[in-house]
């Protein structure tokens, strides 16, 4: 942990606020799922990107605030981010190659 990092860590009250935001984002995800089912005009072209953005936001909040990566030395962020990005890129390419997703 970086020197003096504990002074930047959120307080319990802020952790609860972050958890509330996470709960609202989860509720929004579920609402989008049912919206897609109920309103045909919306379709997957809108809901899929929206769901991916919401989950990315949740992912970021947990990693940055609960795992404290935002307050850590940059080396840890580089390790973690490179692992996530490389794995994501590898599997996206595999899925595209096998025709499971269309990239362009």
């Amino acid at each position: 942990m970086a020197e003096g990092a504990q002074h930047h860590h959120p307080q319990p009250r802020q952790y609860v606020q972050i958890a509330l935001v996470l709960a609202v984002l989860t509720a929004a995800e579920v609402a989008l799922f049912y919206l897609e089912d109920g309103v045909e005009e919306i379709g997957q072209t809108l809901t899929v990107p929206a769901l991916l953005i919401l989950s990315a936001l949740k992912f970021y909040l947990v990693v940055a605030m609960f795992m404290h990566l935002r307050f850590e030395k940059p080396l840890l962020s580089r390790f973690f981010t490179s692992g996530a990005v490389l794995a994501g890129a590898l599997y996206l390419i595999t899925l595209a190659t096998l025709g499971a997703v269309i990239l362009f």
Partner: protein
Amino acid sequence: MAELVGGHGEGAGHHQVTGIDSRKLGMWVFLSSEFLFFGALINNYLLFKGRDFGPGALYPVELYDIPFTSISSFVLLMSSLTMVLAHSALARGDQYQTRTWLFATAFLGVVFVSGQFFEFGEFILHGLKLNINPAASAFYLLTGFHGFHVIIGVLMLMVLGFKSMRTGGLSEAEGLNVELVGLYWHFVDIIWIVIFVLVYLIQ
């Protein structure tokens, strides 16, 4: 927490040239490598979920109970809050709250895993057996592997909680263990965030 994890106690010998405790660095590298494991399993499921396995084939997507899984997801998400509150309480030196939040996190983990067992039981009752088709196998492998991670996390939390009860509180050196278990627990949570959207919500 800087003092707890900085290694002024027993952990002082674990510092490297990076200035980061080697155990903590090791945990981050391990978690980074876990992306490959879970990525492979998610990839596997995405490849098979849309395949045609003949007339009358049963797929996991036909049996999903989204309200139930949403509540499970919420429970796991809230366990990340209780975990970070345990970490925060230990940094303040509040041993009672540390213990309480550690056990609360373990309890929420048990609730989540119980939900997963219930879901598997329901699916099997409906005929979706493990080997019925590759899509079902991929689903059980992915969610089961995640559930196994949660069980390991619950065991680690219980060990810390009972150790705290037995000794009257966790020492400064053990504070790093709480942080490492916390990192693992939050990681299990973020993997579920991805699974919930890619497997359950995007059909």
